[in-house]
């Protein structure tokens, strides 16, 4: 187990800057997710931590030691790859045993011929066997030990890859999109398994994913990456409730946050949208036009006549446990999505006029370049002009 300290990590391939100065501290035993759209540099960052890639600038410390230039094998980290990277010619047993054999046996003791003649080989192999069997029992692989990877399903292969990582005690686990090759149902199931594994092992997990749901459900902290920068880092609740950037707000959460154009900060530092005014103090110059973000579950139905947001119901998605209304508001690029619990909004049908409102503290206001505009919420009621 170890903590990680990344300072000023940059990476460029020729003229492309993939990482533009990453500072990140990862505490011992923490489950941290690096999440972002593809191409944001999250995998490159993980590979730099693993030592599979060298950073162009900056340094990485693991447990207090600077590991720049230290080979991956000597960093004592375990990695689970997106493609699982199992050795196709080896059985499940041998796949899981590889990290132990590499570390506990000498080159001669690994050689195919005469290895049993070298003292200690048999004893070490016996210990390896019991360790591999423990892991197999933990992951439910006991009956598959003699199979080859090609004879396994995706989920089983994924488990073997995890087994190969946890069989020795590495300082941390690096997981590079380990669930993205699984079908949706299995992915949800493995999410729970990995989170439980983390609790059981108590080790540091660094988890790379493009799926915000995986990051939200498993992590202690989430680092949201865009264009080679970490633009926000915090607990799942922090990142969800208090996005510092429009891109974070849009990336985290499903269904996506609603973004409405056309808000303006007035003289009294309140927010004006159309004919409505939200009485709150926003720390921004009067006259600034802003974009209004509001989560689907923060919206409530209101009288269409005088609600701050009003439009027509374009589509209704019934997902069983929840109902999503797609409300088209004039002059907005996308339909506003409103989330109701099961049984909500039964009386509204497609084409109906719908009025929507929300509390001022549920508004997330962003400037023209996507930066968050902070608010001092004064009053909790919406004033109508």
């Amino acid at each position, binding site marked *: 187990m170890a903590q990680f300290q990344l300072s000023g990590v940059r990476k460029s391939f020729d003229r492309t800057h993939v990482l533009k100065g990453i500072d990140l501290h990862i505490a011992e035993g923490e489950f941290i997710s690096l999440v972002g759209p593809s191409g944001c540099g999250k995998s490159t960052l993980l590979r730099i931590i*693993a*030592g*599979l890639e060298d950073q162009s600038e900056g340094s990485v410390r693991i447990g207090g030691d600077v590991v720049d230039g230290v*080979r*991956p*094998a*000597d960093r004592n*980290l*375990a*990695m689970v*790859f997106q*493609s699982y*990277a*199992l*050795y*196709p*010619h*080896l059985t499940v047993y041998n796949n899981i045993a*590889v*990290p132990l054999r*590499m*570390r506990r046996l000498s*080159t001669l003791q*690994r050689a195919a011929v005469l290895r049993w003649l070298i003292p200690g080989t048999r004893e070490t192999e016996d210990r390896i066997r019991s360790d591999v069997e423990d892991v197999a029992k933990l992951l439910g692989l006991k009956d598959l030990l003699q199979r*080859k*990877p*090609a*004879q396994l399903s995706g989920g089983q292969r994924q488990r073997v890859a995890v087994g*190969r990582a946890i069989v020795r005690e590495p300082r941390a686990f690096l997981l590079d999109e380990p669930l993205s090759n699984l079908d949706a149902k299995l992915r949800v199931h493995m999410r729970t398994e990995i989170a439980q594994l983390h609790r059981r092992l108590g080790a540091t997990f660094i988890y790379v994913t493009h799926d915000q749901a995986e990051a939200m459900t498993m992590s202690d902290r989430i680092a949201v990456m865009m264009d080679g920068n970490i633009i926000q880092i915090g607990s799942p609740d922090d990142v969800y409730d208090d996005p510092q950037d429009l891109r974070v707000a849009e990336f985290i959460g499903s269904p996506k946050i609603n973004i409405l154009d056309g808000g303006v900060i007035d003289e009294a530092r309140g927010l004006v949208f159309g004919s409505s005014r939200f009485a709150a103090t926003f720390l921004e110059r009067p006259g600034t036009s802003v974009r209004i973000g509001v989560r689907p579950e923060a919206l409530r139905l209101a009288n269409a006549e005088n609600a701050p947001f009003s439009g027509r119901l374009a589509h209704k998605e019934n997902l069983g446990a929840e109902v999503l209304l797609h409300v088209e508001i004039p002059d907005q690029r996308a339909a506003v999505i409103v989330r109701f619990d099961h049984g909500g909004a039964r009386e509204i049908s497609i084409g109906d006029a719908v009025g929507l409102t929300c509390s001022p503290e549920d508004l997330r206001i962003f400037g023209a370049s996507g930066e968050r505009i902070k608010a001092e919420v004064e009053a909790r009621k919406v004033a109508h002009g």
Partner: protein
Amino acid sequence: MADVALAREIDANIAQGARPHVRLRRRRMMSMTAAVLLAPALVLMALLLIGPVLAVLLMSFTDYQLGAPTWSLVGLENYIELYGDRVFWTSLTNTLLYVAIVVPSSIALGLGLALLIESGSTLRAFYRSIFFIPVMATLIAMAISWEYMLHPQFGLINLMLKEIGLPAQAWLSDPVLALPTIAAIGIWQLFGFNMVLFLAGIVSIPSHLYEAAVMDGARSAWSRFWLVTWPMLGPVTVFVAVISAIRSFQVFDTVHVLTKGGPSKATEVLLYSMYSEGFEFFRSGLAAAIAVVFLCFVLLLTIIKARLIEKKVHYS
């Protein structure tokens, strides 16, 4: 609704097999088309491959002599003669020895070079081309160059040996050295081909396997080679081994140009025996029997490849 009804009617017609003769005719047409499309390939195969092999097989049971007006069936006489012929056994042993030297060496050299080229970052294309040149060159012409280089008095190789204080060798006229020398030329001619196949094989190994190996603690290139490269190259290696073996069995050009099977049958090989029996002594029947023995070896190799080894190197 009209089109639904129409579709139902068509379905009903098909279901009750309204016109079985139409379907039969269609099926016959299909097989006719298949036959027509296959015909050119079948004719060529029969003409160029199966026909000649059958002719050789037939000829091996006759006493036919090249140019003779008549021939008669002699049964297994040619094979019996081969069985009792010391030269044939020398020739067979020499061929197997040649294969045993050339195949492992050209595989090891080809694989080694492929690994070196792949691990380097510069001049890859240059090295690839340079080592591939012997494969493209006409062996019979190259054999003549080798003859000059191996000349006992003024050959380049002996001059170089003298320069560094080693005794000159009679490479092609010493019965002990002649076959290994021919084999060395065989290796020189073959390893570039194997190298290219191995290069292709190495490129197709997924890089994440090496990354997994490194994370698993495979510190040295040696352990990564045995953990990833060698097993992943299994199918390529089998293919290369079989191709190399078949090509080595076919050794002829160098023997014909450089030694004519000598000195004292030290480099007599199967194809050379066949050639001399058939075209120097005109005993075509006997030559055909040698050809059949040769074909049996090639067939054996192919079967071993297909049946035994291929299953072990494809990991599914």
